[in-house]
């Protein structure tokens, strides 16, 4: 069997000419109409999204710098994926619930999770300090794809609680599961698709196809466009310009609405690009070319919103300066908060394993505490 041309397989690399790609804002900052999707946002709201995008990127930049300075063990940058995360995150209602991977810093921002909690995980002081129930934002999940099943189960719980399709928009809730292109090869993700489909669970499968799973390109995971896989599982799939915050917002809003109404799951493929390394431990120069990076730089998710806002009255120079100043303050908060984070105490880990402590673990703790105290006063 001969290999088909990659262009035949993936379409014209997700640019605005791809007829299957939902795009509402071009890389040049021009608004576009789409027959099925529209963002119900005025220019003030779009300025708000711009602020989210800039602040999220600043959190990411600061965290990367902190890793380089030895303050974080590792950091997974979201550079390039801000629009996919802010667009989808802002489409959520307070009662919705998100199940993230370990890169959803922008979604965390939308859910009101202090970025310091994210840094805490990568600094090694805890494994996720925020309250998932309070924020509607699950713990970061590092085992690839596992969270898609949790999302589906949570969605089944919503069904049992009578908050799906009740007609009460203030109560009806949906779930959004985040994952990447690499995860679509995992058994758990495919099982989640099947479960969500047969139980008609109110879950949106939001795949950020950033083209790379560490060093493996998308063609190592699939031979058809990912969103087309949804058909085989029995629910709709949509490909959206993942660098277009308006399109991501509109498509996710429609998918979540569908979920809350009781119409079942949707697969959203946000076609985007991982502009940075997989993590701070990765070296992408070993496996991809600068040409590709340059092509995607021209599709930057923030620049296009700024270009658009310049054509409106919603944002003047003062607005942009204000956002920059806010970003600086946020960076200071992130940096100072990170440096000031107390280390955990080793004796605390014994108490967090079980809801009901076991006698043998209590004894281990006691013995280790005694061992530690035997050093007190010694030099």
């Amino acid at each position, binding site marked *: 069997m001969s290999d088909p041309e990659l262009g035949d397989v993936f379409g014209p690399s997700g640019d605005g000419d791809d007829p299957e790609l939902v795009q509402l804002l071009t890389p040049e900052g021009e608004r576009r109409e789409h027959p099925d999707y529209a963002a119900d946002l005025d220019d003030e709201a779009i300025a708000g999204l711009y602020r989210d995008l800039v602040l999220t990127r600043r959190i990411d930049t600061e965290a990367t710098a902190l890793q380089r300075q030895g303050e974080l063990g590792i950091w997974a940058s979201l550079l390039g994926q801000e629009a996919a995360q802010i667009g989808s995150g802002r489409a959520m209602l307070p009662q919705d619930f998100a199940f993230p991977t370990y890169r959803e810093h922008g979604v965390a921002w939308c859910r009101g999770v202090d970025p310091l909690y994210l840094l805490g995980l990568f600094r090694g002081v805890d494994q996720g300090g925020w309250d998932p129930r309070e924020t509607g934002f699950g713990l970061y999940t590092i085992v690839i794809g596992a969270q898609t099943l949790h999302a589906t189960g949570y969605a089944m719980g919503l069904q049992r609680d009578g908050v799906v399709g009740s007609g009460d928009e203030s109560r009806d809730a949906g779930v959004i599961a985040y994952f990447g292109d690499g995860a679509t090869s995992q058994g758990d993700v495919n099982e989640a698709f*099947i479960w969500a489909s047969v139980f008609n669970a109110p879950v949106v499968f939001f795949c950020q196809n950033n083209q790379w799973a560490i060093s493996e390109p998308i063609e190592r995971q699939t031979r058809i466009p990912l969103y087309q896989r949804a058909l085989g599982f029995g629910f709709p799939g949509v490909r959206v310009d993942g660098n277009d915050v308006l399109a991501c917002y509109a498509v996710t809003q429609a998918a979540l609405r569908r979920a809350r109404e009781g119409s079942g799951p949707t697969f959203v493929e946000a076609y985007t690009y991982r502009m940075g390394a997989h993590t701070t431990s990765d070296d992408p120069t070993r496996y991809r070319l600068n040409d590709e990076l340059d092509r995607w730089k021209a599709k930057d998710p923030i620049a296009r919103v700024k270009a658009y806002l310049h054509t409106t009255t919603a944002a003047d120079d003062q607005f942009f300066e204000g956002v920059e100043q806010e970003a600086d303050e946020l960076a200071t908060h992130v940096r100072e908060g990170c440096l000031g984070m107390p280390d955990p105490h080793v004796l605390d880990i014994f108490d967090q394993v*079980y809801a009901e402590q*076991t006698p043998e673990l209590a004894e281990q703790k006691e013995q280790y505490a005694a061992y530690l105290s035997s050093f007190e006063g010694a030099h």
Partner: protein
Amino acid sequence: MAQITMAKALTNGLRAAMEADPTVLIMGEDVGKLGGVFRVTDGLQKDFGEERVIDTPLAESGILGTAVGLAMRGYRPVCEIQFDGFVYPAYDQIVSQVAKLHFRSQGKLPMPIVVRIPFGGGIGAVEHHSESPEAQFAHTAGLKVVAVANPVDAYWMIQQAVASDDPVVFFEPKRRYWEKAELDESVEPVPLHSSRVVREGNDVTVLTYGPMVKTALEAAIAASEEGRSLEVIDLRTLSPLDMGPVAASVRKTGHVVVVHEAVVNLGMGAEIAARISESCFYSLEAPVLRVGGFDTPYPPSRVEEEYLPDLDRVLDAVDRSLAF
């Protein structure tokens, strides 16, 4: 008082748990209309509906993974794994998610999930239907692991496991599903994580659980005819272990034999022997001996009776201990 089988006792226990708490769900393959391949969930879907007794797709990781999400939403899923050898597709979700979420969230996300696993051999089954993987779960921090040996314990322990806010891997000895006992529901049960002396004796302590309790008791009867007095302890809980009754018995007898179907290498017996040597070293008159499966995959059923510990192999170990 009427006699009840272990399978029926489990059904009744599950029914009581579901009546007591509307958040209790049952999920698994064929647990609904069929009532499970061992009929443990017989009639529950009819009485509690398809929303609470869920026939799942054939995907064990899916069963446990969705149970995690349901638990996060406040439900208490009781997951049935159809046979021991089919739990491995769910191993990642059990070990990396179910066991760790309470820890990772510093207690914000308890995982009140029960994983029921019919385990062990002796029923002439084809491969993957007769395994004893309990040590693999007891080795995992964050899980609690129990094994039942009789209908009375089955009735109470399944309710206690469902009520636990921690995840419990619940092993049911499938060849004992049809053993009967009298069940007096008015007698208060002992705590879930406690071991129990089921036959008193003075010469050798026999430690066991699940399907081997019956075998050990039969060995004790045979030994008594030869003038030897075996004390049999049903461990019941494998994680945490309850070493209190064990230590008391070892100090009395000085001789210990641990019996389980699982392979001896790094099995529960290894941990138990180590703990006894740490806490009862000066009481021991002989090394702790282990009787279990050989370090082979579970064999074809025509030879399983020789693979599985039986009365004679238990007594042989008793002889060796006393002759030491």
